[in-house]
């Protein structure tokens, strides 16, 4: 615990981070979103912290939480290291509903790309600076963000037809230095091949 206190003192001084009291069993630090990127960079590279594994990015919706006043959403980062004395910690950022943006850390950890896409998909939190923010788990025609507390669990949405991944593939090729000269043709299904109950976009 002494190591946690030391680390907390450094983080408090540098980034204005406070200890989150909701986590009574581990070590969670609450930080403002302006300092988030710098804090994560520090945690990854500095010798006293060296958190090289980003385990998870969790989105939380506090709508209806008993005795809670504060911004509606929270994004929590779960970190781990095998080298430094403090082995695990979490970083929490509170995000309000009206200004639902958080700086992206996809340039620090390779896995943050997909995990931030998932938080965007389920909660609608936009990650600024993310290279390719689109849905991960729900289908392309899904409207809404299902894990929010005001999205009814039984509200089903049909998908009319699967999307071609060609635009994304071309973006990937371009990021590797290829230039697209002629695109492939996308063949859409006939009208009667769309699923009943779905809407054609």
């Amino acid at each position, binding site marked *: 615990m002494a190591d946690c206190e030391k680390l907390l003192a450094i983080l408090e001084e540098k980034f204005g981070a406070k200890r989150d009291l909701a986590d009574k069993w581990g070590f969670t630090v609450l930080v403002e979103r302006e300092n988030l990127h710098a804090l994560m960079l520090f945690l990854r590279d500095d010798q006293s912290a060296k958190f090289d594994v980003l385990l998870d990015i969790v989105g939380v919706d506090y709508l209806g939480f008993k005795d809670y006043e504060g911004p509606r959403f929270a994004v929590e980062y779960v970190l781990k290291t095998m080298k430094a004395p403090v082995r695990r910690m979490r970083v929490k950022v509170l995000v309000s509903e009206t200004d639902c943006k958080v700086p992206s850390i996809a340039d620090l950890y390779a896995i943050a790309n997909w995990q931030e896409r998932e938080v965007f998909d389920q909660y609608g939190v936009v990650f600024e600076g993310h290279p390719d923010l689109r849905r991960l788990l*729900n289908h392309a025609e899904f409207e809404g963000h299902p894990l929010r507390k005001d*999205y009814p669990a039984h509200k089903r949405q049909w*998908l009319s037809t699967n999307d071609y991944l060609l635009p994304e593939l071309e973006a990937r090729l371009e990021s590797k230095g290829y230039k697209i000269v002629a695109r492939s043709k996308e063949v859409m299904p006939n009208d009667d*091949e*769309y*699923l009943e109950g*779905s809407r054609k976009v």
Partner: protein
Amino acid sequence: MTALAEKANIITSSLDFIVNWGRKNSLWPFPYGTACCAIEFMSTETARYDLSRIGSEYVRFTPRQSDVLLVAGTITYKQAPILKRIYEQMAEPRWVIAMGACASSGGFYDAYCTVPGIDHIIPVDVYIGGCPPRPESFFDAMFQLQEKIQDESYMKARAERVKEQLEMIKAKTAECKENAEKAVKNAVSCGVQTIKEGKDNLMKKVAFWKE
């Protein structure tokens, strides 16, 4: 001719028997496995509960070469158009088995993303309950499917297919009959008229000669 084409007889029922015997004892499954039921299906195909003893020797992972579409696992809305397309790519005769609770009714995933049963998308022949169903349940389902296939009739299926043609043939035959009757009536009336004319002429001649 049409009556003969519709009724089953000893030849067609023997043909039915042989065709269905061949089909039911060589059901090649296409395991459309998505979730846990697929693992239980893998157990069914391995040595302990051997699936090949009922004719499904090896699983064909392509719809073009398989008979039974075995949907094992949850189908989500993202997956649904693909399931439909795969079903349409299968050649007849084809059957569908919905394996497990998730494929039959959505299971206990009553959520925004799961299809509540694949019969919202494709027609299903046999439903297997269980989460996941035991290999013995799976065999029971295959046996029920075999019984269903046994009761199929080639002539009935053929009658379904050719129903339109038979209707057309019937209509055409009726039309021809009508035309023939009309022609006969015409001919008869013509004949009657000629005879009457002949009689009249004869009467006139007789009268002429009398005078």
